């Protein structure tokens, strides 16, 4: 089980690095353009992903700050958001690496934003975290297509797995 999450953490960092590289090459006005997805733009979507990862990492470790609103913009400039993203992906990978198999199975207590208590196994929380990332990266990929990017680079796990065979 741990090997699976170590791979997912690596994949998360790999896919985010690819996505931010494509986002950084866009003109600034297109990066911020509201194309009608849930968090409006690439800017909104990438900020949301960093925010929610910080919320979950805070629940899992008790450390780190984050705003309460899910559409809060953490970094107005993409360059700063990218630097923060690299740090967060390292943090997530280091956390996963620090866990033992029994700790992955352990039930963890946390509270949601409105104070409701919840219980889940650590591995289920991590599954959600990585799946949520993939979900919104899919939206980000669609935004690139809507903006006219020809065949945005694939973000599939399979591509990373084949690259590293």
């Amino acid at each position: 089980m741990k090997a699976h999450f170590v791979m997912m953490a690596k994949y998360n960092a790999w896919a985010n690095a690819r996505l931010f590289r494509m986002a950084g090459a866009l003109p600034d006005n297109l990066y911020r353009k509201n194309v009608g997805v849930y968090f409006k733009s690439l800017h909104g979507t990438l900020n949301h992903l960093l925010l929610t990862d910080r919320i979950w990492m805070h629940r899992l470790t008790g450390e780190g700050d984050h705003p309460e609103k899910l559409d809060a913009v953490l970094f107005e400039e993409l360059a700063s958001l990218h630097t923060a993203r690299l740090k967060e992906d390292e943090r997530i990978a280091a956390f996963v690496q620090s866990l033992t198999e029994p700790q992955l199975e352990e039930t963890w207590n946390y509270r949601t934003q409105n104070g409701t208590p919840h219980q889940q196994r650590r591995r289920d929380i991590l599954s959600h975290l990585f799946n949520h990332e993939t979900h919104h990266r899919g939206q980000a990929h669609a935004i690139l297509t809507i903006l006219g990017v020809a065949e945005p680079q694939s973000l599939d796990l399979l591509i990373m797995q084949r690259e590293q065979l």
Partner: protein
Amino acid sequence: MTFSDETVMAYADGELDAATRAAVELAMASDPDLAQRIARHRGLRQQLRREFDPVLAEPLPDRLLAAATGNALAQAHSGNVVTLQRRPMRQWTWPQWGAIAASLVVGLLLAPLLRRAPTEGLGIRDGKVLVSGTLAHALTEQLASTQTADAPVRVGVSFQSRNGDYCRTFTLHEQNAVAGVACRDRDSWRIEALAAAHPAASGPGVYQPAASPLPPGIEQSVSELIVGEPLDAKAEAAARARGWRGP
């Protein structure tokens, strides 16, 4: 005393305050498990860097953004990275000749800027390469949140380094584009790392990318220097108002 994983990570990354760092070091002396946890995290960090760097260095296909931008992409590429500052964890200092040799390389990379105006300059003080002129002015005055697309220097990320100095990444949009990171050094700016980057596309339809991709060597220098968060627009403006001196 036990330390959380977050504290161990922060120690390995050099991000703890002096008091906590001293406490960790004291505990490490008598706790081989703690020393091992720290060593493990340092190893993981290096391993992750090896995963990130090839992706950051991947060139984007030329045609990828052609339809969205109506122009070819500006692509950064790796290579020719000059790192000037010693790594924070190392105990040795640069000899003077090292700084002189480094300044010659910096001079070559910054040659177009230096040629353009006689007031541009590089200086060496205490073994450090300092900049003046256009680049220093932009680093002191320009805000990433308000800069114009035609500015000769584009400022990227601003942050505080491990020793408390403010640092900023920059890209010079010259014929031979150069990207780098510089840190405040009294009233000047000290170059920490420089790398050649492909120039932005020119001609009709040229655009300003949302974030000029920095060469991986520069990204890595930022990652090694940074403590805490990159500055947001408000913190950047506040730091400028203080003359880029610590709060």
